[in-house]
């Protein structure tokens, strides 16, 4: 701690603080332009100059100068005032004063400072910038005529996002920020540069000319896409989410978002939203009243329950309260067939973790990853499924020099980080590599074995996974496997990251067990600050697991329900918030199930391919219309707040479940989400003691910052065999999309509008495939046609296609395998 005096106020701050930060802590305002809390100090703009008694004779930039003991700082004097004014005058020499048409007007730092320092005339004269604007892409508009060269965009894209779109080019008055070769921006479109720019030089295009900042109502909520649980602050006007506002004050994401959170909100405003209930009459879905529809649903379910039973399959983007009500609806119907996210991706992973560690969730929280010195990411797709968690990893690697290992079947963005090594294996062999790492630890005696159960069997089974042997099968050099294992075991603090989701259903239990084995043997489980992270694909995947939205007793899981329905031994299906036809593995089976079940009810925002097959369709509400809680991948229970009302007669799932339960005669009635939460907290141990209204801006992490593993049991687990075939197809998530909802959101669709098949550049050359060529892909007796995309991520013989798009029909080929041997032709 250091003591210093600022403007006569004596304060004590940490010795790593800068003068600016110290002043801020003391409630003293110093103006800044190029400073940002999450970026490294830079000192480019000089508006933060202050006087320090010990350094008389010149003014000191407060944002870069660390505090020292006994420092006496003055933040305002005539001279400081004059110098700051001069700095502003300089900035305004070339600045086009576009304020009336500049969307930043009203929250522009330059505008505010100009006003505050009364810069009404300029002693200097110069030509105004006249640079072309970059409006090639549909999401981010760049107007360099308004740039003040603070470098925040350059730094955020490099330091945090790890993408590196921008750099300074030219010198002197000609200096400007440019993309590579000064072409239009083409990047991840995460919008971090938009939120960092202190002026109107980088703006969100979908919000262009829509409103002034002061006209907008800000509503804090949680992103509905992935399990990262980023806080998003909706900018609401005219009952529409107009934009997502920058907010680094609350939540887990430090104001960082990915394209889905930043630009994917617009599905809530979509004209395609369902606005009335629909009932199938003579093969056509026709509009109906709520009363009619609910009557039909209740009737249908009662009949089906008395016949061969009802199956309920839910998505994982419902709030905890809604999932709880759904369980009650299931009880009212009298069925135990209740499940979420088919393909059973979540089921295997949780079973695996329960068997080994006795937990069903991440053991740590995100900030701990930033301090880790070794990180193991299983699957390179981790950045794609959880981009903002990916940014945490970026910072751990770039700032804190963590060593990053990626066990993956393709090269990804992670692999490009300094200190990153990709253990690039043949498709489907993750478990083999993880086993080999475990074996390497056992071989060299560095494995932690104290208090570990099941060691002997594990040792026996791992004999087949000597690194050398696995190297031959997987293509990962034995040395690399050993080095990675050694680093992991030697780490002071390590993090093991594992994501799951609908496109990663194969071997989920095996991967979870292998990862947990490795966590135990490497000491990750025992060390403080070392954790295993289990990251669900959807916003409330963890909540669904916590609440036990899974088959109870003799109930059937999603796959069993589909099998049963297809075979005619289940009479009704209730599909809530999931487009199974598009996203579940094996479309044929799903379609057969929907045809085979006598009565199908779909509850969704859109008339999805699944809803089209339903007998009754109930229009539901988006996250922007809901009140409740989500639980993110670090077990953080966070509040979701409604910003807008639902279109037409659409209702929240909460309201629908309540009405339906009452129609079923269950008399479900709560005063609101708080009451439902109280009821669920009573039933779910982990949520005990958490109060709905006490969930603050940072949420509540159930189980505490570090969840202790209940058991330490290593379990033998078998790897897979490599998939034979000239080409092997992998499916998964694309960075720009999440699930199927994002295909209704303008932002993500503007960047990736349709399905594609990705080739590595080597294969593309051999096959003479270029971007945009139509490619036929055949496997499992089906064929799909997709546009080609060529990139450098994929090794030879591997092709990749994202699973989000309904029309593409990828799940005609994908039946739940880790990798599929395919025939590829033009």
């Amino acid at each position: 701690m250091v003591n210093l005096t600022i403007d006569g106020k004596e304060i004590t701050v940490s010795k790593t603080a800068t003068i600016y930060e110290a002043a801020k802590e003391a409630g003293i305002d110093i103006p800044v332009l190029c400073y940002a809390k999450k970026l490294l100090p830079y000192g480019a703009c000089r508006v933060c100059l202050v006087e320090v008694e010990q350094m008389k004779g010149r003014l000191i930039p407060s944002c870069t100068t660390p505090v020292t003991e006994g420092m006496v700082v003055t933040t305002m004097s005539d001279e400081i005032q004059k110098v700051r004014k001069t700095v502003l005058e300089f900035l305004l020499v070339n600045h086009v004063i576009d304020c009336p048409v500049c969307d930043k007007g009203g929250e522009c730092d330059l505008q505010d400072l100009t006003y505050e320092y009364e810069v009404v005339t300029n002693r200097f004269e110069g030509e105004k910038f006249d640079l072309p604007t970059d409006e090639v892409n549909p999401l981010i508009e760049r107007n360099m005529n308004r740039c003040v060269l603070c470098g925040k965009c350059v730094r955020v894209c490099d330091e945090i996002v790890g993408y590196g779109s921008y750099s300074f080019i030219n010198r002197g008055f000609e200096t400007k920020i440019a993309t590579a070769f000064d072409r239009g921006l083409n990047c991840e479109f995460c919008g971090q540069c938009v939120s960092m720019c202190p002026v109107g030089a980088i703006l969100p295009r979908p919000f262009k000319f829509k409103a002034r900042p002061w006209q907008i109502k800000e509503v804090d909520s949680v992103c509905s896409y992935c399990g990262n649980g980023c806080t998003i602050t909706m900018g609401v006007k005219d009952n529409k989410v107009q934009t997502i506002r920058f907010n680094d004050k609350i939540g887990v994401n430090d104001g960082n978002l990915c394209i889905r959170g930043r630009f994917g909100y617009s599905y809530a405003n979509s004209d395609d939203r369902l606005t009335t209930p629909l009932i199938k009459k003579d093969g056509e879905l026709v509009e109906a009243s709520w009363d009619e529809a609910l009557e039909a649903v209740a009737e249908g379910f009662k009949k089906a329950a008395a016949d061969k039973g009802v199956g309920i399959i839910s998505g994982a983007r419902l709030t905890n309260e809604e999932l709880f009500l759904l369980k009650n609806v299931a009880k009212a119907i009298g069925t135990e067939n209740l499940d979420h996210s088919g393909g059973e991706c979540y089921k295997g992973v949780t079973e695996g973790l329960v068997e080994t560690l006795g937990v069903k969730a991440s053991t740590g929280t995100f900030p701990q990853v930033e301090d880790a010195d070794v990180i193991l990411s299983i699957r390179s797709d981790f950045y794609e499924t959880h981009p903002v968690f990916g940014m945490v990893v970026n910072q751990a690697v770039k700032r804190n020099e963590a060593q990053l290992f990626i066990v993956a079947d393709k090269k990804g963005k992670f692999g490009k980080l300094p200190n990153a090594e990709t253990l690039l294996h043949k498709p489907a062999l993750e478990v083999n590599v993880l086993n080999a790492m475990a074996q390497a630890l056992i071989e060299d005696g560095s494995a932690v074995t104290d208090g570990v159960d099941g060691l002997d069997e594990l040792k026996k089974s791992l004999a087949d996974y000597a690194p050398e042997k696995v190297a031959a099968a997987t293509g990962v050099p034995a040395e690399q496997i050993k080095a990675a294992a050694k680093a992991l075991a030697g780490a002071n603090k390590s993090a093991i990251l594992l994501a799951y989701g609908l496109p990663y259903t194969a071997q989920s239990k095996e991967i979870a067990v292998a990862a947990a084995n490795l966590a135990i043997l490497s000491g990750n489980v025992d060390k403080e600050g070392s954790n295993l992270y289990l990251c669900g694909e959807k916003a409330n995947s963890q909540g669904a697991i916590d609440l036990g939205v899974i088959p109870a007793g003799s109930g059937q899981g999603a796959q069993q329900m589909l099998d049963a329905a297809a075979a005619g031994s289940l009479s009704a299906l209730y599909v809530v918030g999931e487009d199974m036809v598009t996203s579940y593995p094996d479309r044929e089976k799903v379609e057969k199930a929907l045809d085979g079940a006598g009565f199908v009810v779909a509850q969704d925002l859109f008339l999805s391919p699944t809803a089209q097959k339903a007998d009754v369709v109930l229009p539901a509400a988006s996250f922007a219309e809901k009140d409740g809680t989500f639980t993110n991948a670090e077990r953080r229970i966070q509040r979701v707040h409604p910003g807008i009302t639902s279109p037409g007669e659409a209702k929240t799932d909460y309201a629908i479940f309540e009405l339906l339960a009452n129609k079923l005669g269950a008399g479900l009635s709560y005063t609101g989400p708080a009451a439902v939460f109280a009821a669920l907290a009573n039933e779910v141990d982990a949520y005990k003691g958490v109060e709905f209204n006490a969930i603050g801006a940072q949420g509540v992490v159930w189980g505490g910052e570090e969840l202790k593993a209940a058991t330490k049991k290593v379990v033998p687990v078998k790897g897979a065999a490599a998939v034979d075939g000239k080409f092997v197809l992998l499916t998964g998530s694309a960075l720009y999309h999440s699930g199927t909802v994002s295909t209704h959101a303008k932002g993500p669709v503007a960047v990736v509008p349709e399905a594609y098949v990705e080739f590595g550049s080597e294969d593309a050359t051999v096959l003479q495939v270029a971007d945009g060529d139509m490619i036929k892909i055949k496997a499992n007796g089906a064929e799909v046609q997709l546009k080609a995309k060529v990139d450098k991520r994929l090794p030879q013989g591997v092709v990749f296609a994202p699973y989000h798009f309904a029309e593409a029909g990828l799940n005609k080929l994908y039946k739940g395998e880790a990798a599929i041997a395919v025939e590829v032709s033009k």
Partner: protein
Amino acid sequence: MIKEFIQGLLITLKYLGPGHTTTVQYPRKGHRLQPSDRFRGLHRLVPDHDREKCVACYLCPTVCPAKCITVESAENEKGEKYPKVYKIDLLRCIFCGYCVEACPVEAIEMTGDYELANYHRDDFTFDKKRLVR
């Protein structure tokens, strides 16, 4: 003393005679008042080439104490910001002139037009068509 008094009275008397009176027979036809330049009457949106000068900056609706101005901005074919909607509800307007003062591009003025009575409520809504003159 008396002389000055008579002189003064004469001036007064002069203004009683025809041609000098300031009282007009209003609203008899042809009798229009010419208010001073500073008079604050009906607004006018200043035209500029093929469009209005207004750039839909939202300052006038923001400053308006009577909250009677509605602006909706949009992008035109040339990529410029323009007011897709510009409306003043004269029934609420208090003719303070703040909008004129706030406008950064001198796109709104107040004219000497004072004949604003009308028969229907709707007639008091002045949209772009009626304001751009």
